[in-house]
C-alpha cells in the first residue's frame, strides 16, 4: 500500500461511499499536481512524492474536518432509510381528519380540565398540562399537513418552533418527574433528539436545493 493510499484511508474513515470517493478524487488530483511541481523544481520522483504527502498534513486532522462538512456513512444510511416524501404522504385526507380530531379533542379536554380545576380531586394541573401539551404537539406536528413548509425560510421557522417545543417538554419533564425516573425521559425523548441532531448535521452539509423533502421538516 502506498503512503498516499494510507493517508487517504485515514482521511476518509467513517465517510459515506460518495463522500470518500469525492475526497479520494480531489486529493489524488492535488497530490499529482503537487508532485509534478516538485519534480519541475528538480526533486526526484520519490522526493517529490514525499514532499507532496508532507504538504497534505495530518490525515487524522483532515478526517475530522471532512466529517464536519461531508456526509458520514451513518448520515448517508439515515437518508437512504428515511426516504419518505411528506408532501405526498400528507395528502391523505384521513390523516388530516385524524390529527384535527385528536388535536381539537385534546385542546377541548385540556381547557375543560383547566376550568374545572377545583372540581378535580387529584392531579388536575398534571392532567391539564398533559392534555394541552398533547394539543400543541398535534398542532405542531400536524402543521405540515395543512401548510406547505417546503421553502428554506418557512421550514427554518417551523423547525425553530418545534425545537423550542421539544426543549419545553424536556424542561417540564425534568421538573415534573423525580430524578430517579429521568431515565424514562431519556428513553422516550432520546431517539427523537438523536434523530433531530442527525438531521441538523445533514442539513448543514447539504445545500438547501439538494435537500430531500423530509429534511425541510
Amino acid at each position, binding site marked *: 500500500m502506498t503512503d498516499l493510499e494510507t493517508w487517504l484511508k485515514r482521511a476518509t474513515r467513517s465517510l459515506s461511499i460518495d463522500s470518500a470517493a469525492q475526497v479520494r478524487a480531489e486529493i489524488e488530483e492535488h497530490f499529482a499536481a503537487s508532485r509534478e511541481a516538485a519534480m519541475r523544481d528538480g526533486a526526484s520522483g520519490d522526493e517529490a512524492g514525499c514532499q507532496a504527502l508532507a504538504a497534505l498534513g495530518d490525515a487524522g486532522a483532515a478526517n475530522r474536518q471532512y466529517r464536519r*462538512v461531508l456526509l458520514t456513512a451513518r448520515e448517508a444510511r439515515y437518508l437512504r432509510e428515511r426516504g419518505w416524501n411528506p408532501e405526498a404522504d400528507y395528502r391523505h385526507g384521513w390523516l388530516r381528519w385524524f390529527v384535527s380530531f385528536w388535536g381539537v379533542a385534546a385542546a377541548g379536554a385540556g381547557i375543560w380540565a383547566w376550568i374545572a380545576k377545583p372540581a378535580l380531586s387529584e392531579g388536575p394541573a398534571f392532567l391539564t398540562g398533559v392534555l394541552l401539551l398533547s394539543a400543541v404537539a398535534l398542532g405542531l406536528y400536524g402543521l405540515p399537513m395543512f401548510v406547505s413548509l417546503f421553502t428554506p425560510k418557512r421550514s427554518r421557522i417551523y423547525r425553530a418552533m418545534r425545537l423550542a417545543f421539544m426543549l419545553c417538554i424536556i424542561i417540564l419533564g425534568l421538573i415534573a418527574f423525580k430524578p430517579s425516573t429521568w431515565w424514562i425521559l431519556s428513553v422516550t425523548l432520546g431517539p427523537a433528539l438523536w434523530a433531530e441532531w442527525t438531521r441538523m448535521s445533514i442539513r448543514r452539509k447539504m445545500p438547501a436545493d439538494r435537500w430531500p423533502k423530509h429534511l425541510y421538516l
Partner: protein
Amino acid sequence: MNFKGALPTLILETLAQQPCHGYAIAQQIKERSRGVLDFKEGTLYPALHKLENEGLVESFEEMENGRTRRSYRITRAGRGVLARDRNEWRELSQAVNAILGEA
C-alpha cells in the same frame, strides 16, 4: 503562522481574482503571503466544501492538459461575504495597529 479562522476568507479572495483548482488556490495563498501563511493542504478541501455548502463558491469540471480537474469560482453571495470580511479585517487590524503602535 496559524490563520485557521481566516482560511475561508483567503480562499474567497483568491477565487475573486479568478476561478481555479485546489492546488492553485493553495499555491496562490502561499505565494501572495510570501510563504508566511503556510498551511496543511489537506485542510483546504474541507474549507472549500463548507464554502460550497453555504453557496459562497461553486465547483465545476474543466479539462487541463488532457485531465479533468475540479475548479472553483466565487458566487455573488461569496463576493458579498468577502466584502464584509474585508471591512471587518480592516477594522480589526487598524485597532490592533493602534494598540501595538502605542507600545
